[in-house]
């Protein structure tokens, strides 16, 4: 039984009990508990099921490396799957549930897989579910999807807040153990601006549990003192509950701060993602203990030796009354000694090393603990909890010598430095044969822009395990980091420390070393993904020699813990199976984040109203209040139409077109791009940008222009107004405003840098309103004393007027074929003008219209639309726009490209109008079929629809399209098959359907 001890638990506040539930069961912990320690204190040894075989799983670790104990945490809008109980701080009212079982944790049907394990080896899925082919999609995949996955996806909208924070430091130290504290102090004392972050709520790391002496006193003294010193330094920032998640190029570093996880009722963000620029990074990330690979090492109650020690010392929790320690190094003796001193039984220490341990072993023996050298664990008895171990000779094949009754097994296969952050951005490792671990290679650190390393490892993360060496090493790393960022380290020595001398580790990758297949099939490497020694050996036999291939074949290290416990053991087994040394096998790639971070923290502020910037015109609120059905155009929202109560979208569009053609429509055209181009060379510049001649435009006049890119393709169009001799106002499409402005600046800054031209994007300075329809002049004349007659402001002219008391500019231009004006006023007066026009237009039945009515009216007139008639492959000549291409100019952007053979090919599809024989509306993008099939067996085509609408004016479908030899085939009938197979027949006609002579706009 695991239970709370009567005394102890240095992180606990026993006076403050906290209630929580696990699978609906009411349990109680105390303040300072992690969810893991609280579960263990309640004898909840079984906490989940493994991914593949649904084996019973218990807590195995005490920190971020935990592979097993994942729960669904919280409920509804706060539910989050796959949360590690070891890194979850307990709070009052916490609810959680175990995962990956049905119908219950105690009785799980899926556990049948475990009985079938012999038939479910590595690669089973790949081998089995491949035939017959159609079965994958319809039979296998649905079943596998059903049974796969650990946690459930949340169903409700996350109710918490998240945010980013940009920060800049000279030196960032990751890890707040004694090494991190010393490194931060050394760097801080040198005057560097330092951030020290620690992923847990506590400073000091493992040292208070592991003991030793610093300056002759327990490590706590050093921790408290150093912390006080750091807090007193103004140039040092300290953060707990913040993990170094990833190291990226040029000192970019992500820090994941769990601000609110432990206090869910507090105001404020739940997680804060720090986006840090660091001059130097010191990784003082410690080390992770390795499991040993013996049969039954996954039974709940088998734990890392360090974890059992942590639970006892930090949380006053005993995992069992009788704990057998099994090890290949001296460190695990600390667990035995700790437990014994707490009054718990340690029936035996099983040391795989024939020579046994050093000073710590002597201490254990002195405490009366039985030590068995050269022995191993052959088999763990029990299923849902440990009942005992069979011990054997480590050198043998696993014949049981003796069974020892126990409730817990503390295992230690040695320690692996946490090299993840070192490795994220390209830091290399070397294999330290004597210490049996991969260590950061200081000669191959991740390098910054200057070619120098910007990451330094310190302490255990650098492979230092002796307390004195840890402090020396960390002190040096802190000083070096400060120096590298231009600071002068102080000439001080690291604190003196002493720890018991240890005998060297002897690598044990399999226990016993000659374990039979029966034992190897129960010796787990990856606990979460159920990868055993036998699976990796099978992968090697089947030719998966690359560690990356073996990983993917067996799924070793692919679980949510990313192999923090399993990777080194797994690649050692692989190396052994391949008969090659470990460094030759190498490691898999370490990728950020170090442990999973919440997706919401990555999204940060970008959610709900701040998900995406939506650009709003000055009249936006009016539109919203009057039934606007929105259409996104670029980042703008424009009304597609204004729906009246009871009206369909189609009805609304048809009504808006009719009302405008019959009387008066209003269009919010504020989103159109408006770019001022000024300077002595402005005319010359625009002549290069537009296909037609702009320099000859007279002040007071407007001209429609086409803009092509250097490949000749049409990219934008719009009306250019000449404001004065030096100044033009170029209108662009809504979506084109920013890109065309950038296009202008690029040419001015790179090619024509000596031309005297300045541009300014004034799109948002003006609200612009289209006043459109036969009554448009009448309504303007009601509001203005200026001469707006056919002569006073002629077609394609502009003038400054006073309208409804506002200074306005009126452009007499038309995109609808009607008598039409565009009125622009400063944006701050846009809404006022809109209201005035509505009021004055009431007697004419003024009708605000949206983008769809605009589209229909322009299509009825055969006006092209960028993005409909063009798609980046269309040149103006394809669209019959020769009239807008100057023959007089020597050059313009796109001119040479348009002279290339492919561009002048007479078989390029050309713009025509299309009139369906039955009056129906062609589907958008439909293709006109031709005889025969192409090389791929597809039907040949001879044209496609680019714009298609039901015209309320004509009462029939109209369309434009690009057709092979189209302009020469007037009257020909084309066939357009619909997706449902029905064929629509349409006649080729001129693309102008309405008022061909333009009489309506010339009044």
């Amino acid at each position, binding site marked *: 039984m695991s239970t709370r001890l009567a005394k102890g638990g240095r992180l606990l506040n026993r006076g403050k009990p906290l209630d929580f539930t696990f699978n609906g069961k009411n349990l109680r912990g105390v303040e300072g508990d992690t969810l893991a320690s609280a579960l263990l204190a309640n004898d909840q040894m079984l906490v989940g099921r493994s991914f593949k075989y649904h084996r019973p799983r218990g807590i195995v670790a005490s920190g971020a490396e935990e592979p097993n104990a994942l729960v669904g945490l919280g409920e509804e809008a706060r539910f989050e799957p796959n949360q590690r109980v070891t890194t979850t701080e307990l709070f009052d009212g916490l609810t959680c549930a175990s995962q990956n079982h049905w119908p219950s944790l105690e009785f799980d049907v899926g556990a049948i897989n475990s009985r079938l394990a012999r038939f479910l080896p590595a690669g089973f899925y790949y081998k089995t579910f491949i035939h017959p082919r159609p079965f994958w999609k319809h039979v296998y995949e649905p079943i596998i999807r059903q049974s796969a996955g650990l946690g459930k996806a949340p169903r409700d909208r996350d109710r918490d*807040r998240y945010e980013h924070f940009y920060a800049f430091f000279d030196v960032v130290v990751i890890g707040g153990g004694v090494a991190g504290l010393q490194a931060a102090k050394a760097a801080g004392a040198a005057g560097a601006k330092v951030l020290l972050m620690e992923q847990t709520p506590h400073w000091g790391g493992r040292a208070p549990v592991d003991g030793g002496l610093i300056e002759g006193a327990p490590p706590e003294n050093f921790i408290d003192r150093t912390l006080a010193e750091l807090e007193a330094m103004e140039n040092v920032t300290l953060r707990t509950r913040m993990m170094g998640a990833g190291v990226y190029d040029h000192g970019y570093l992500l820090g994941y701060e769990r601000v609110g996880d432990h206090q869910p009722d507090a*105001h*404020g963000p739940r997680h804060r993602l720090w986006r840090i620029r660091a001059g130097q990074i010191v990784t003082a990330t410690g080390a992770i203990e390795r499991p040993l690979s013996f049969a039954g090492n996954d039974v709940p109650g088998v734990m890392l030796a360090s974890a059992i020690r942590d639970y006892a010392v930090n949380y006053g929790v005993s995992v069992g009354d009788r704990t057998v320690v099994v090890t290949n190094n001296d460190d695990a003796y600390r667990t035995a000694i700790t437990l014994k001193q707490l009054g718990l039984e340690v029936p035996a220490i099983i040391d795989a090393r024939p020579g046994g341990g050093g000073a710590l072993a002597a201490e254990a023996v002195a405490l009366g603990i039985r030590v068995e050298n050269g022995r191993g664990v052959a088999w763990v008895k029990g299923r849902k909890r440990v009942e005992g171990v069979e011990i054997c000779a480590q050198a043998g094949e696993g014949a049981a010598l003796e069974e020892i009754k126990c409730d817990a097994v503390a295992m230690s296969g040695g320690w692996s430095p946490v090299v993840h952050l070192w490795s994220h951005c390209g830091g290399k490792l070397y294999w330290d044969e004597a210490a049996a671990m991969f260590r950061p290679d200081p000669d191959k650190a991740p390098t910054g822009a200057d070619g120098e390393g910007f990451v330094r490892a310190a302490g255990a993360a650098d492979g230092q395990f002796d307390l004195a060496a840890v402090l020396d090493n960390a002190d040096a790393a802190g000083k070096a980091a400060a120096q590298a960022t231009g600071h002068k380290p102080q000439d001080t020595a690291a604190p003196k420390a002493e720890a018991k001398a240890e005998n060297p580790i002897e690598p044990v990758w399999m226990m016993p070393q000659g374990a039979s297949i029966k034992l190897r099939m129960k010796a787990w490497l990856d606990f979460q993904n159920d990868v055993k020694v036998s699976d990796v050996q099978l992968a090697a036999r089947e030719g998966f020699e690359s560690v990356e291939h073996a990983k993917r074949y067996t799924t070793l290290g692919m679980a949510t813990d990313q192999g923090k416990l399993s990777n080194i053991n797994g690649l050692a087994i692989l190396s052994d199976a391949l008969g090659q040394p470990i460094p030759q096998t190498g490691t898999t790639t370490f990728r950020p984040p170090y442990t999973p971070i919440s997706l919401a923290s990555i999204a940060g*502020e970008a959610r709900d109203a701040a998900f995406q*910037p939506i650009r709003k015109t000055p009249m936006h609120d009016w539109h919203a209040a009057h039934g606007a059905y929105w259409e996104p155009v670029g980042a703008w929202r424009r009304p597609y139409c204004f729906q009246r109560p009871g009206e369909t979208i189609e009805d609304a569009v048809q009504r808006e077109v009719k009302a405008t053609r019959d009387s008066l429509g209003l269009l919010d055209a504020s989103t159109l791009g408006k770019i001022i181009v000024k300077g*002595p060379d402005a005319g010359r510049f625009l002549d290069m940008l537009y296909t037609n001649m702009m320099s000859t435009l007279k002040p007071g006049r407007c001209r429609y222009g086409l803009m092509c890119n250097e490949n000749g393709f049409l990219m934008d169009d719009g009306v250019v107004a000449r404001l004065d001799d030096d100044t033009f106002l170029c209108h662009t499409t809504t979506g084109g405003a920013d890109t065309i402005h950038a296009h202008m600046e690029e040419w001015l800054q790179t090619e024509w840098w000596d031309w005297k031209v300045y541009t*300014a994007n004034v799109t948002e300075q003006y609200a612009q309103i289209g006043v459109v329809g036969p009554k448009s002049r009448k309504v303007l004349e009601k509001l203005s004393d200026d001469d707006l007659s056919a002569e006073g402001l002629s077609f394609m002219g502009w003038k400054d007027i006073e309208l409804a008391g506002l200074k306005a500019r009126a452009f007499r231009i038309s995109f609808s074929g009607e008598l039409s004006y565009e009125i622009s006023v400063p944006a701050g007066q846009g809404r*006022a*003008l809109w209201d005035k026009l509505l009021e004055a237009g009431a007697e004419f039945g003024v009708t605000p219209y949206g983008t769809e009515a605009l589209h229909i009216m322009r299509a009825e007139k055969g006006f092209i639309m960028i993005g409909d008639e063009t798609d980046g492959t269309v040149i103006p000549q394809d669209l019959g726009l020769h009239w807008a291409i100057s023959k007089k100019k020597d050059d313009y952007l796109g001119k040479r490209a348009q002279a290339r053979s492919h561009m002048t090919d007479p078989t390029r599809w050309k713009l025509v109008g299309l009139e369906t024989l039955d009056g129906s509306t062609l589907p958008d993008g439909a293709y006109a079929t031709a005889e025969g099939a192409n090389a791929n067996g597809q039907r040949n085509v001879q044209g496609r629809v680019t714009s298609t609408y039901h015209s309320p004016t004509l009462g029939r479908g109209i369309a434009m399209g690009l057709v092979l030899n189209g302009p020469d085939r007037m009257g020909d009938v084309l066939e357009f098959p619909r997706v449902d197979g029905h064929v629509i027949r349409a006649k080729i006609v001129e693309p102008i359907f309405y008022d061909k002579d333009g009489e309506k706009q010339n009044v």
Partner: protein
Amino acid sequence: MSEAVSALNRASRDGFVRVEECGLQGMVSLRGDLDSAKLAKAVTAAAGLDVPETGRILASEGRSVAWMSPDELLLIGPYAEAEPMRTALDTELAGEHALAVNVSDARAMFRLSGRDADVREVIAKLCPVDMAPGVFEPGRFRRTRMAQIPAAIWMPEPGEMRVVCFRSVADYAMTLLGNAADKGGEVGVFA
């Protein structure tokens, strides 16, 4: 004549920092040769200020001049004075190659006020700029990115920050700044 209105009509939100839209401000964009004496004279005539150094803003008596780019300045003043400022620039720069344009209505301005450290934090949540005291101080002018939109920031004085963005995204900017300033979100780094 109708009163011109700003994008959010001086809306405000109170968190650990107060965020308010400033109402319409006069802003004139000036492009030209920043090294020329004539331009310097024109700026003085229009705003009573010199041409600022790279990345700086100068302010006096309700007017400011900010460095926008190697050939662009932004003159800021009361809304009603934008046109007079622009006219003054045009007059002084007659015959020179320069462009002065009134952009008052194209922009929205926000004022953040509170404890100096807090005001800095709100910006540091949204802009990739080192907002630490001693690094970003009054007199600095920075064009940057605020979450997903372009913005410019400066500190008229400790405990006060100004943000300028495009008018069309004023709503988004208000949401960003208001959320970042929500109580409980204090970071406590610059304190």
